[in-house]
């Protein structure tokens, strides 16, 4: 029997998967959904548009939303002339009253954000996955109590937790260092990593693991060859949520990073205030747009994994 070979449309390859056996919605529903998502997306859209505006255009009321007049179709008052000036001044600025071009340090801050968020989320994923497997497969006496305690640190607002955390880091001499903030974010990500990964492991069929044991696998091989590959989608989902949370974290970063380890959210707040000429909206929007790109890419390329969930077609219950 020849398998039916279907061509995958490009939009499906890009990650827009259509659920099989579900007929597509009509135009009415689609239009409604488009309007609602536009409302959701509007703040982000305004930021992106603003990042291409000069200060005068950025301050214009009503807002100028179109970068082109569409060959004279739109009136002058609604259009602006796009510029890349904001993006260059994110990284270096020249003072209007002369002097050398100065580095703003944002290249360093972007590196810090990527390095700190990436390392701590991966670290939390490694530790959390192992811990979750332990909680799921080798339960302790009072297993649920431990799981509950792990979550308590996230039950309070960050502001409340931060004072003891600051003191702890200062006492051990890690305040302001990469190691300090990475460890902190790892601890910050662990509770939900453990909880999420445990739920994925709990979903797996224990029969499959027993089958592997009978087939001659050691416990370690069962974990790496059988369990882990089945929760890849879960790992991806946990990774994305962790990245989004850590990438945007402000309070801990503000109080626990030094000049060298400053992350973008902190630097952003400092770059726009001060200067005495009001907020540079175009510059702020440019930083935000650049800041958006990494998480946007991570989420976009992992959305297949996020949406897929875990399939258990081989096990009937």
């Amino acid at each position, binding site marked *: *029997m020849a398998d039916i070979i279907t061509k995958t449309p490009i939009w499906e390859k890009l990650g827009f998967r259509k659920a099989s056996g579900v007929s597509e919605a009509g135009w009415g529903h689609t239009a409604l959904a488009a309007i609602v998502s536009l409302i959701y997306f509007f703040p982000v859209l305004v930021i992106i548009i603003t990042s291409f505006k000069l200060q005068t255009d950025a301050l214009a009321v009503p807002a100028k939303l179109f970068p082109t007049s569409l060959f004279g179709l739109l009136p002058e008052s609604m259009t602006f002339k796009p510029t890349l000036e904001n993006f260059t001044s994110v990284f270096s600025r020249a003072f209007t009253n002369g002097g050398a071009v100065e580095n703003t340090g944002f290249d360093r801050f972007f590196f810090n954000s990527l390095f700190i968020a990436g390392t701590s989320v991966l670290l939390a994923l490694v530790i959390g996955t192992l811990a979750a497997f332990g909680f799921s497969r080798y339960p302790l006496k009072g297993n649920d109590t431990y799981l509950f305690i792990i979550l308590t640190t996230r039950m309070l607002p960050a502001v409340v937790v931060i004072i003891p955390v600051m003191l702890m880091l200062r006492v051990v001499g890690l305040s302001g260092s990469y190691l300090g903030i990475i460890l902190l974010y790892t601890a910050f990500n662990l509770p939900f990593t453990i909880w999420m990964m445990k739920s994925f492991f709990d979903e797996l*069929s224990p*029969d*499959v693991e*027993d*089958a*592997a*044991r*009978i*087939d*001659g*696998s*050691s416990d370690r*091989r069962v974990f790496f060859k*059988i369990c882990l*590959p*089945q929760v*890849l989608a879960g790992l991806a989902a946990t990774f994305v949520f962790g990245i989004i949370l850590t990438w945007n974290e402000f309070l801990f970063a503000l109080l626990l990073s030094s000049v060298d380890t400053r992350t973008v959210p902190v630097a952003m707040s400092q770059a726009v205030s001060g200067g005495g000429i009001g907020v540079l909206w175009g510059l702020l929007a440019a930083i935000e747009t650049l800041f958006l790109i990494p998480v946007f890419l991570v989420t976009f390329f992992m959305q297949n994994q996020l949406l897929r969930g875990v*399939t*258990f*077609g*081989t*096990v*009937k*219950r």
Partner: protein
Amino acid sequence: MAATKITALALNGVSKSYGKVRALAGLSFEVAEGRFFALFGPSSVGKTTTLRAIAGLVQPDAGSIRIGGADVTHAPIKGRGVSMVFQSFALYPHLTVANNLAYPLVEEGVDKSEIAKRVKETADMLRLSHRLERKPSTLSGGEQQRVALGRSLIRRPKILLLDEPLTNLDAKLRHEMRAELKRLHRQFGMTIVYATPDELEALSMGEEIAVMRDGRVVQIGTPDELFDHPSDLYVAAKIGSPHMNTIQVKVGSDGNSLETPFGSVPAPRIIGGLSAGEALVLGVRPSDLRLAQGAAASLAPSVQQLEPLGDVTVVSLTASGQQLRIVLPEAQAIGMKTGDAVPIVIDPTKLHLFRGRDGLALSRQS
């Protein structure tokens, strides 16, 4: 079939409890090498726990398990030479069919060319060659079942454990797989322990059957032995379809007849004799009852229900609130109506007698 005397597997007094639940209570049986051995009993009777103990997934609390003469009670899983097919199939969902089949060999460290050869052989044998690159979730139930079987057979185990392997298949596939399993058993000649709650599967496939109850074996025997000489009411009720008729009876005052709600029947000769007035349970298979030709009827109950099954008809009869089923060739049942009185003859040599107190069978004088 040449019956070998070598014992492939022996369980002796194996017990296992999960908390307060007693799964196995002093389970003992032996399986000769190359035998198709069926563990038969309703669900939660301890069949799965038995198989898991043999495989090494469960450590018994007491008792011993010997495989090929060696005590493996507390031995590691690896090296027992046992493979198992799970009720849920338990295929590796992230691996292709080829890799599912190859898995036990990879774990054994067999080299690649040999693995490729054996995967191909196994796939050919189980008609899976065209599915090798598929993931298990895209296969039909029957194909998944064959992959599970192939994965268990590929490393040529000494003992193959099958845990209700047909339960998740539809009726037609079940029938096919029964034949397929028998064929594989003939072809490979390995020892098979087959757990099933299905009487038909146990009887049609098991060369020897252990009937289980509450974590113990009640009776072991060939299908004929279990059918002809059930050791107690439990076995009598489980084996045979439609089930054996059981009737509360009393031994007559002369000690030679049985008083049934349908009338009096002559008692079979029992070792040790019968005492007058003793309460017994009379068992008679629906196929051992015949219509009386002429005036020799022992009983004459009336028809309550007719179940035509094609070539035979199951007739439910009733008298004094007691039910009696009888299997008749279709021709004899034609024209019967509910309420008709049907004259019946009971052959005293086909009767089974059980003690009313504990349900144990009374042995007949031969």
